[in-house]
């Protein structure tokens, strides 16, 4: 049945055929695949499922409800735009990796059980790494390695959690987790690694900015948003997520303000934005969960758009540091305009999609009377305009003219950006089509006079502060140290400490055992018979009347025979007998 065909399978199997296409046909093919997947998802009936019996488990590869469908829509829609943007690209490895990555992200979203969910989750981690490695720079190779190591750690936490959970509950179904025990907390940690929650977030700003031009666009959408999906599915109303989310919103802003690399600024702003969504999951009401899903939907669009505009600058100029960029409005006006629309959307400017989605989360906090949460989210909203809304476009396109005259980027890139810009404004002005596909019913009006005025006050004063403090925000040629320090520098520190400690122990045991004990043992075994013999013989000789020189002679003679091993058999046998008698008596 076409209506029950898992859309993930289409992309994953389709990816394997990519090498058979050449030139433009390949580019059209990769655009067409997610477009067909989008159509398939629109045909899926809510409530239908597709199960496979496997090793004693009933694996549900397709679980269709409103929540999985809305993520399916945006994942495929974004994929179409990303592949249009990547039309210039003649690299089938990247296209294959991207399709497998997107396909497995859709697999996660439609997985109805923990086993198949975990399978797709791991495929995502592996395939996404190739989008980083394909940059083929030394930095990208190193960042890619760190990226996969962190995800292996997260995957192991998740696996351990899933095993404990299945053992305890006896069920592999992936639904809201009620019990709070070791198993569910391990699952939560595994998911939060992918959601880039501090302190396990540093893989994101470390690796994404090292990815290829299109790799950055694609990566920005899927890993963190599948994590958001799984949190909505498994952990709604877990209060700890409110705290985690609030920390993420502020953390992202602080680091984005410190950063010099434009794509690293955008990477930190992902953490900031996902923070809003995680917070919405923690609040856990229908309104805030709707808000989280709506915000994820809009976020994927405007964040892709921002990465696209940064990507076209990188593609045309080959530079990504703010200190190297500036004055590009003269030669890249369309990239500026589209990037600007993305910047306004992420800042929740009225008439853009961020305004109609983020307000749901913030109102969710108000309805629950969470005053501190509300305040943090408002402060973070103002801060978004600072770092992503103004800082990114200002330092890249305006600021100081660095004499760069690259010219506008290629047409497919502009078409993709135009489409995403249209979506940002369309959902900003007409959010109802989006509200209709959210998991719960929505009765919400974002555009009240007071709400618009309040939001504009917040944002325009934020803009004023930016320009008043411009001197303090002057870019420096620096990087900012984040928690990846612990496994980049800390690794070396760890090496140093273990080197000192373990090799110290080594040297000490060498001295004690090899130099000391072994020598002593050698001496004992060499001189043992001598001591035993003399110990037994001296009293006998003394009793026999030997004194002084005569006794000394006897002792020397015995020593000499024992050292050369030349004692007569009779004496050896006598000694052995004495020894056995002594041992027997002692026992």
């Amino acid at each position, binding site marked *: 049945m076409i209506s029950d065909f898992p859309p993930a399978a289409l992309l994953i199997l389709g990816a394997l055929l990519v090498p058979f296409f050449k030139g433009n046909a390949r580019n059209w093919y990769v655009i067409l695949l997610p477009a067909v997947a989008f159509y398939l998802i629109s045909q899926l009936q809510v409530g239908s499922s597709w199960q496979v019996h496997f090793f004693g488990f009933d694996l549900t590869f397709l679980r269709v409800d409103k929540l999985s469908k809305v993520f399916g829509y945006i994942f495929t829609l974004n994929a179409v735009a990303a592949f249009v943007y990547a039309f210039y690209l003649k690299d089938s490895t990247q296209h294959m990796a991207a399709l497998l990555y997107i396909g497995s992200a859709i697999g996660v979203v439609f997985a109805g059980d923990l086993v198949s969910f975990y399978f797709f989750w791991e495929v995502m981690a592996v395939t996404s790494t190739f989008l980083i490695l394909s940059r083929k720079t030394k930095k990208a190779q190193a960042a890619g390695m760190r990226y996969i190591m962190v995800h292996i750690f997260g995957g192991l936490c998740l696996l351990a959690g899933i095993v404990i959970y299945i053992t305890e509950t006896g069920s592999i179904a992936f639904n809201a987790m009620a019990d709070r025990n070791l198993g569910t907390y391990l699952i939560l940690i595994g998911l939060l690694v992918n959601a880039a929650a501090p302190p396990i977030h540093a893989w994101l700003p470390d690796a994404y900015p090292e990815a290829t031009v299109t790799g950055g666009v694609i990566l920005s959408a899927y890993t963190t948003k599948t994590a958001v999906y799984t949190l909505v599915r498994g952990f709604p109303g877990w209060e700890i997520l409110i705290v985690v989310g609030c920390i993420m919103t502020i953390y992202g802003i*602080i680091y984005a303000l410190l950063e010099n690399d434009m794509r690293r600024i955008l990477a930190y702003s992902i953490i900031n934005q996902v923070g809003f969504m995680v917070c919405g999951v923690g609040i856990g009401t229908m309104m805030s969960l709707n808000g989280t899903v709506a915000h994820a939907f809009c976020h994927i669009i405007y964040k892709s758009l921002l990465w696209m505009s940064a990507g076209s600058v990188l593609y045309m100029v080959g530079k990504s540091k703010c200190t190297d960029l500036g004055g590009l409005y003269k030669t890249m006006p369309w990239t500026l305009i589209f990037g600007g629309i993305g910047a306004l959307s992420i800042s929740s400017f009225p008439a853009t999609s961020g305004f109609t989605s983020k307000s749901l989360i913030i109102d969710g906090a108000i309805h629950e009377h969470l005053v501190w949460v509300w305040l943090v989210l408002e402060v973070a909203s*103002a801060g978004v305009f600072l770092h992503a809304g103004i800082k990114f476009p200002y330092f890249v396109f305006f600021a100081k003219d660095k004499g760069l005259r690259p010219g506008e980027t290629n047409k497919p890139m502009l078409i993709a950006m135009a489409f995403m810009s249209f979506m940002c404004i369309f959902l900003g002005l007409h959010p109802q089509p989006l509200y209709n596909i959210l998991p719960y019913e929505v009765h919400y009006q974002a555009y009240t*006079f007071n709400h618009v005025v309040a939001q504009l*006050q917040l944002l325009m004063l934020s803009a004023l502060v930016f320009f008043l403090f411009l001197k303090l925000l002057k870019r420096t040629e620096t*990087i900012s*140290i984040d928690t990846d320090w612990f496994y980049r520098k800390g690794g070396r520190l760890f090496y140093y400490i273990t080197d000192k400690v373990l090799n110290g122990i080594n040297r000490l045991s060498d001295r004690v055992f090899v130099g000391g004990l072994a020598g002593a043992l050698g001496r004992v075994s060499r001189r043992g018979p001598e001591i035993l013999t003399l110990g037994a013989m001296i009293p006998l000789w003394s009793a026999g009347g030997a004194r002084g020189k005569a006794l000394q002679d006897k002792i020397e003679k015995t020593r000499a025979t024992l050292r050369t091993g030349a004692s007569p058999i009779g004496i050896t046998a006598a000694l052995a007998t004495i020894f056995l008698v002594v041992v027997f008596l002692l026992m």
Partner: protein
Amino acid sequence: MKQKKEFDWFERPESIKKMWIMLYVVCGLLVVPDFFTHRHAYFGFDGFLGFYALLGFVSCSLLILFSKFVGLVLKAKEDYYDK
């Protein structure tokens, strides 16, 4: 052949001055509606005149100053990890 002059409006001192004036005027005008409309206060303290403007101004100033402060410790040379 005379080269076409580049569009450089955003760099001219007089346009920068104009943009500053615009920014101040917009910020000022946005507080005006607060005189005439009553905004429902959710938590009691958020209903007063120009609350969101003040919130935006204060929070952004603090965010910048705080990031500047932590930047003293967290900023490192670009080749920090290569050494």
